[in-house]
């Protein structure tokens, strides 16, 4: 045998000792390494493994519902599918974008932009598209295995059953913008959150928004959902109860029809906005969707500016409706007494300029009552000139002109109440006395919004007590079922003697019965009102029908009813419709009659002999 001898074997056994020592050393090293991983860095790796397996998915809350004053539903939510992508689980981003673009018929760039939007972690799912059609949703679901990191969630989507009705009041919703996300009041939101972008949806977004919930979804390495681990339920937003009566709102909108303009109806005793129509309008359902750039441009550049709420944002010369304010100012400043007579022969000479009355021959000698009934311009030229612009401005402000009414809609415009100080500041020019004459009949620099005028006539109707216009009367907390009522708030009291107010109201009633607004005369209810025609172009030549429509005058009518105990104040503004008496007054009458028919109890107040406040019984709120 030529193998190893015994000494070799002993040699070998000695070397085995080396192997043993070496083995122990190596295993000790392994143990040390494992101790390092599991004990020293254990918590770190534990965190990593938790993140590895869980994706936190936001559960969008349902927005609160919106009702009208009678509990009729104006805005609700319907289920819809939304597509989310979690970048962490996406292995091939470009490939995924191409796939999604093909499946959903989307622009790849839009998807790319959505994916890179926001600075959230890669673990945070990003919303790529909402309102998927059922077909799209099933298409995605059937390709689920090829689309790691893609998730279809059922969410609630805002729905306005009435479509265009009350669009400017309700507003619409949309994804929170990048700018909004920077702000503190949107801190609890994230990219893809839906917020109110217009109307009460925007003003009351905090209440209506609700609180998002969270679902921790355990996913496997391919991003496929295994099970939901923890669920924090989303909390639905609070419900809003508006002051509007949707039937009246619809009537008001239909009255305007295709015409451009606004109708505002208030309850003068509470400030409740009963209706606020603005035309042209828009469909909030469409705007709540994600619009393409082209669609946006179309809406924004539309000549009718449908997104403009003309009731609060349209600024027009009040025309002769301003004479209501003028009358109160003239009486209160003792410029005239009710019986002061002014001679009107069709014009008013100031310096070398002749200011015409609307009636070429003039009205003869008129007192205040007659001046209002016939809307005599010369009378108001005269008293305006006697008062001076600053006195006019003082009373106009008391009636709330030149200021926000405070209604709960954003971007309210204030109009202009001109004064010497205003002109100095705004134009850096002195006030010219001749300008007072234009202002006296609501022309020149004076501009107002229809809501302001409704508030003015409401203040007169409410005997000088001005109520703040409001759109929301209560908010109901979904969780507790508690209904928080907003009491009506007094905006101010104009310093006009009751006798003066009474005279004005009486005169305005005469306007309807025998003056410029006989077309507002109603068999159902006594109405008081004042017509107005706001000139838009300086040159007025030839008969009305020959003037191109866009240069025609705006028609105004402000009214209140019932005269004895007014419960509704209306302002109608119809753009380029010509004379207030013919174009606007009939609309106001329709609105008032609709209201009276719907709430016959407001008439009982009158028949009971001026017990106007007893009619408040029909309104549950007031405090």
């Amino acid at each position, binding site marked *: 045998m030529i193998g190893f001898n015994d000494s070799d074997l002993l040699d070998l056994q000695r070397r085995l000792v080396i192997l043993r020592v070496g083995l122990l050393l190596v295993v000790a090293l*392994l143990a040390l390494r494992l101790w390092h991983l599991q004990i020293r860095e254990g918590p770190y790796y534990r965190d990593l493994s938790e993140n590895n397996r869980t994706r936190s998915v936001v559960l969008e809350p349902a927005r609160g519902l919106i009702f009208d004053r009678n509990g009729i539903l104006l805005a609700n939510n319907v289920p819809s599918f939304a597509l989310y992508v979690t970048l962490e689980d996406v292995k091939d981003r470009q490939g995924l974008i191409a796939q999604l673009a093909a499946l959903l018929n989307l622009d790849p760039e839009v998807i790319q932009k959505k994916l890179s939007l926001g600075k959230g972690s890669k673990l945070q799912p990003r919303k790529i598209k909402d309102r998927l059609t059922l077909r799209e949703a099933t298409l995605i679901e059937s390709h689920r295995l090829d689309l790691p990191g893609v998730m279809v969630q059922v969410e609630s989507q805002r729905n306005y059953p009435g479509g265009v009705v009350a669009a400017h009041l309700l507003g619409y919703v949309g994804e929170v913008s990048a700018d909004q996300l920077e702000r503190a009041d949107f801190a609890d939101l994230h990219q893809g959150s839906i917020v109110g972008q217009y109307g009460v949806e925007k003003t009351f977004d905090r209440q209506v928004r609700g609180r998002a919930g969270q679902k921790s979804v355990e996913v496997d*390495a391919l991003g496929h959902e295994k099970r939901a681990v923890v669920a924090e339920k989303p909390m639905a937003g609070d419900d809003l109860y508006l002051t509007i009566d949707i039937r009246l709102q619809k009537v008001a909108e239909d009255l305007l029809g295709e015409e451009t303009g606004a109708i505002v109806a208030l309850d003068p005793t509470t400030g409740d906005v009963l209706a606020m129509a603005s035309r042209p309008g828009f469909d909030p359902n469409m705007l709540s969707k994600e619009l393409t750039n082209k669609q946006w441009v179309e809406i924004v550049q539309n000549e009718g500016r449908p997104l403009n709420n003309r009731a609060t944002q349209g600024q027009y010369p009040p025309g002769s409706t301003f004479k209501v304010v003028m009358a109160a100012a003239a009486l209160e400043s003792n410029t005239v007494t009710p019986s002061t007579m002014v001679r009107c022969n069709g014009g008013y000479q100031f310096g070398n300029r002749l200011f015409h009355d609307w009636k070429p021959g003039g009205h003869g000698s008129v007192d205040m009552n007659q001046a209002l009934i016939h809307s005599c311009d010369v009378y108001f030229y005269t008293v305006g000139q006697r008062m001076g612009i600053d006195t006019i401005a003082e009373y106009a402000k008391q009636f709330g002109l030149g200021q926000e009414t405070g209604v709960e809609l954003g971007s309210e415009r204030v109009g202009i109440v001109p004064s010497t100080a205003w002109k100095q500041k705004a134009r850096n020019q002195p006030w010219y006395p001749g300008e007072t004459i234009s202002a006296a009949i609501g022309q020149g620099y004076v501009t107002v919004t229809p809501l302001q005028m409704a508030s003015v006539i409401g203040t007169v109707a409410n005997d000088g007590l001005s109520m703040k216009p409001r759109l929301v009367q209560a908010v109901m907390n979904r969780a507790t079922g508690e209904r928080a009522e907003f009491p009506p708030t007094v905006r101010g009291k104009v310093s006009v003697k009751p006798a003066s107010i009474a005279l004005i109201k009486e005169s305005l009633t005469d306007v309807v019965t025998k003056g410029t607004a006989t077309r507002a005369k109603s068999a159902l209810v006594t109405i008081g009102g004042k017509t107005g025609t706001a000139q838009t172009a300086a040159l007025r030549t030839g008969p009305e029908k020959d003037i191109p429509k866009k240069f025609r005058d705006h028609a105004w009518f402000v009214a209140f009813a019932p005269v004895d105990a007014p419960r509704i104040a209306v302002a109608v503004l119809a753009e380029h419709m010509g004379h207030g008496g013919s174009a606007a007054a009939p609309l106001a009458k329709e609105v008032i009659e609709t209201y009276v028919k719907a709430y016959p109890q407001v008439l009982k107040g009158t028949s009971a002999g001026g017990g106007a406040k007893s009619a408040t019984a029909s309104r549950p709120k007031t405090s």
Partner: protein
Amino acid sequence: MIDRVIDSRGMDSFDLRFIGLIAIILSVGVLSIYSVTHSQDTTFPFYLKQLVWILLGTIAFLVMYLSDYHKIARLAYPTYAVILILLAVVLVMGKSSRGAQRWIPIGPFAFQPSEFAKLVLVLVLANYYSRVSRVGWLQRVVVPGLIVLPGLLLILKQPDLGSGLSFLAVYAAMLLMVGVRSKALGIILLLSVMLFPFVWEMVWASLHDYQRQRVMAFVDPDYDPGGKGYHALQSKIAIGSGELSGKGLYGGTQSQLKFLPEGHTDFVFAVYAEEWGFVGVLVLLALFIALIWVSLEIAARAKDTLGALLAAGIVAMLCFCVVVNIGMTAGMFPIVGIPLPLVSYGGSATIMTMASLGLLLNVKRRRLTLFY
């Protein structure tokens, strides 16, 4: 010759301890495989398959245990020739997986010759060294090196880095056992150092993309968690997140949710570590140390050189696989495909390991004849 004398006393307490350790480690493996794959909806799940492999492995164990190891050693060269042919066959018609051809399909199963090649190499080298005298480094180093070379090249060609390294490890262990003179060792070391850049170049060029990535990932695994370092990092997360006492059976989220790839095969240790924590890890390490200790005992008390070399080679192979596998799952070594003996799922590896252990016990059994 005394090698025909057979001990008739049957199993003693030493044997039972040895077999008991093997059984416990095998159970740990089956349990871990069950834990990772139990949710898979198949009629023949992995843990059941593994039980079949263990059954076949038990037969292999008994065959190797009951036959005379001298006879087995005599078959070493022909067996090596068969293995070389099989390795060549694998290259021609083998089943591919992840760019490597390692398996020969047999019915529904796949046979991995490179696993068996390790054991055959131990037999060949033990046989060789037990017959040649120490007449210089040519006989001790170069000739055995030439024996190793064809198998090594065929395995690296697949490529199977893990088995290739095991091959080299067996060779190195054998050299250590027979005692290389310091002069020869010096020459080898010097040559290795000088040749390293060339060898590295050659090895790097012959590596597949995924292997290069794994080597790169080893250098900096946290660099790109979604990419090349994925395996390494997920394995470290699995082990680390087990902390002291583990997440419990089936509680290993890393493996249950498939973040950890190859959870039932090469990375089964990470699954175990995640579920049983540092405590469980120490227990498993202790089990392996005990098994190796007992095996070294057999090598040390072998009655002849062949037995001692066989035992030492098998122990070295076992040690190498255990250390490299745990080391790679713990992020200490680059990821090379080496299974954890007796624990990882795999037919060829399980049968081969059990056959090796049968051979070991065979060596022990025959040393008792010395006392008669």
